[in-house]
């Protein structure tokens, strides 16, 4: 008898709170019609806070740029920031809150790929667009129709790296050296191998090592024997630096093309002269000779006192892409129209490059190819 009463009371309580919530949500939705309201789920505290804060700065600069020019179709852009602390459950909670309570049109983030694998399906079920701006794991766009990203993974950089460097250097044979106990360098090496073959380059030596190895001379001596036209290296900066030094010492003076490890300034600090001339592709290059890029870098630098990093640049482009989709869809409360407009964007000119989505919502764009010259990265032309 007693339990029946408890259940009845609970049901009543739930009914009342649902009614209250519906009433409250109604007012929220009405308010949202006067602005383009987006959510951003970023790592704003904890270990990855530096990434999230760069992203926040990029987004804020983009927002203020748009609003200063009169907003989109006369309505301003709003961003509601949520801190995921880099944790999947926090990211999911933040996405739920943004969708159900804040009634945002679409969401930017989360910062990390594992967070996206948890939060992406949630947004997708709610038919709300979510776009990663730093998630590079394989399979992000494939999560669902409403899941996008504008961040180019290393695998997306490498085709440009090989195409451009082969065009300029005209190599016919290559040696591929990579660390095979690291998922990133290994999968990048597979992409390098595929792209080299696609471009008709013969692989005359493939040598492996491990993260933490220090002596690469046995492998390099073998490469010396194979005498390739170019060395292609997929390694973290530490191993890459030692490998370059030993290669130069042994008399391997061929040009070197590197994977993402070569994007670290640590490479030159450790390898010094041995890294001179190394070629690497990068999704972001603040030194690019392009008015759009130089304008962004100058305004960012003025506001935050430093050169924007990759996270800030991709975030900036992310919001600019959202603005373009908003302009095309025309309605700040129609999530479906927004999603369809975003998916159709082609050849969008951002600060990180010319950009299109593939059929899954993954980015298709050219990376910038850089070369180390006197300790500085310059565009490789």
């Amino acid at each position, binding site marked *: 008898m007693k339990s029946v009463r408890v259940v009845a009371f609970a049901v009543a309580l739930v009914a009342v709170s649902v009614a209250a919530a519906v009433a409250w949500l109604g007012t929220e939705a009405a308010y949202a019609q006067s602005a383009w309201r987006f959510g951003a789920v970023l790592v704003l505290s904890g270990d990855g806070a530096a990434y999230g804060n760069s992203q926040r700065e990029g987004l804020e600069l983009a927002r203020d740029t748009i609003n200063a020019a009169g907003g989109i179709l006369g309505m301003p852009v709003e961003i509601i920031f949520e801190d995921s602390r880099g944790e999947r459950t926090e990211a999911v909670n933040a996405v739920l809150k943004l969708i159900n309570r804040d009634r945002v049109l679409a969401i930017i983030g989360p910062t990390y790929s594992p967070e996206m694998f948890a939060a992406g399906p949630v947004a997708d079920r709610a038919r709300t667009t979510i776009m990663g701006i730093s998630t590079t794991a394989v399979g992000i766009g494939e999560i669902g129709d409403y899941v996008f990203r504008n961040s180019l993974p290393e695998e997306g950089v490498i085709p440009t790296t090989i195409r451009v460097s082969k065009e300029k250097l005209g190599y016919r044979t290559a040696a591929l050296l990579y660390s095979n106990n690291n998922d990133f360098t290994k999968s990048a090496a597979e992409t390098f191998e595929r792209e080299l073959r696609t471009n008709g380059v013969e692989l005359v030596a493939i040598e492996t*090592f491990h993260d*933490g190895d220090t*002596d690469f*001379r*046995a*492998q390099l*001596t073998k490469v010396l024997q194979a*005498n390739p036209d170019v060395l292609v290296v997929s390694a973290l900066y530490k191993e890459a630096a030692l490998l370059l030094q030993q290669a130069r010492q042994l*008399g391997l003076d061929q040009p070197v093309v590197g994977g993402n490890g070569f994007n670290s300034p640590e490479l030159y600090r450790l390898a*010094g002269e041995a890294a001179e001339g190394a070629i690497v592709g990068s999704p972001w290059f603040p030194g690019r000779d392009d008015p759009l890029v130089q304008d962004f870098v100058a305004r960012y630098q003025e506001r935050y006192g430093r050169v924007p990093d990759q996270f800030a640049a991709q975030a900036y482009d992310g919001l600019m892409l959202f603005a373009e989709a908003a302009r095309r869809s025309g309605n700040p409360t129609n999530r479906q129209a927004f999603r369809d407009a975003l998916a159709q964007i082609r050849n969008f000119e951002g600060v990180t490059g010319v950009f299109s989505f593939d059929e899954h919502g993954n980015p298709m764009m050219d990376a910038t190819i850089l070369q180390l010259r006197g300790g500085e990265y310059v565009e490789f032309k």
Partner: protein
Amino acid sequence: MGARATTVWFQQLINGVSLGATYSLVALGYTLVFGTLGIINMAHGDIFMFGAFFGLVLVETGLLSAPAMLVAAAGGAAIMGLLLEYIALRPLRRRQAGHLTPLISTIGVGIFLRSLALQLFGPDSKSFPMALRGGSYRLGGAVVTQVDIVILTAGLLLMLGLWLLLSRTKLGKAMRATAENQATAALLGVNTEAIIAVTVMLAAALGGVAGALVGLSFAVSPTMGLPYGLKGLSIIVLGGMGNVPGAMLGGLILGFAEVITVQLLSSSWRDMAAFTLLFLLLVVKPDGLFGRAQQAGGRA
């Protein structure tokens, strides 16, 4: 047109010697401590790492001298060895804690040292100034770096010195007597506790020098001791636990095995082939190259 096969092999020979010499130096420290105390000092790789940092810190004060750098590495590491003995080894020995407990306590010390290095020096790799590392020479088509020569010279001198110490001096004989039987050594007037402390310090100093040489040759970082520690451990198994010439030869054998595997098979087989060789050798000679079966009157 690639390099000629003979040149390639000559270069691989040089590569093998250079690699093997560093392995030997690392292994010597392990073997000295195992020989005297019957324990594996799991902190050795981390003392090795600190040796490199001691050398680097000295060099960064502006003193660009390889010998001074090696002395700093040896001295700093020796002090760490002494602390290890007093903090992690002697108290357990007093309580007759067996052989497993000190193994675990040295693992603890190793983790502590690694975290300490991370705090003090940060996670990044650092390198010695080019001025100290010098250039390289051409030798019959092959390349030898100045650092290789320093490693080989220092390695040979240290091994010769260690051999002379152990075979010719009173201290060395006391070390060997203590290693074989502490009770008997004490009856001969040997202050075995002091000898053990000296042995642990000497092992640490050798580790420190090895670390500084590896650091000079490659780079210095808080985790640099891990792979070398692992190699050092397998070498003392290969050479015969506690055996000094075994450690020296074992290091060279492992160095050559790795280089030859890369040249003849494939670099992805490098570690596997080296350890397969180790395994095969142990099947043929279970006590290692120079190992003795446990003898009567051996370690108490």
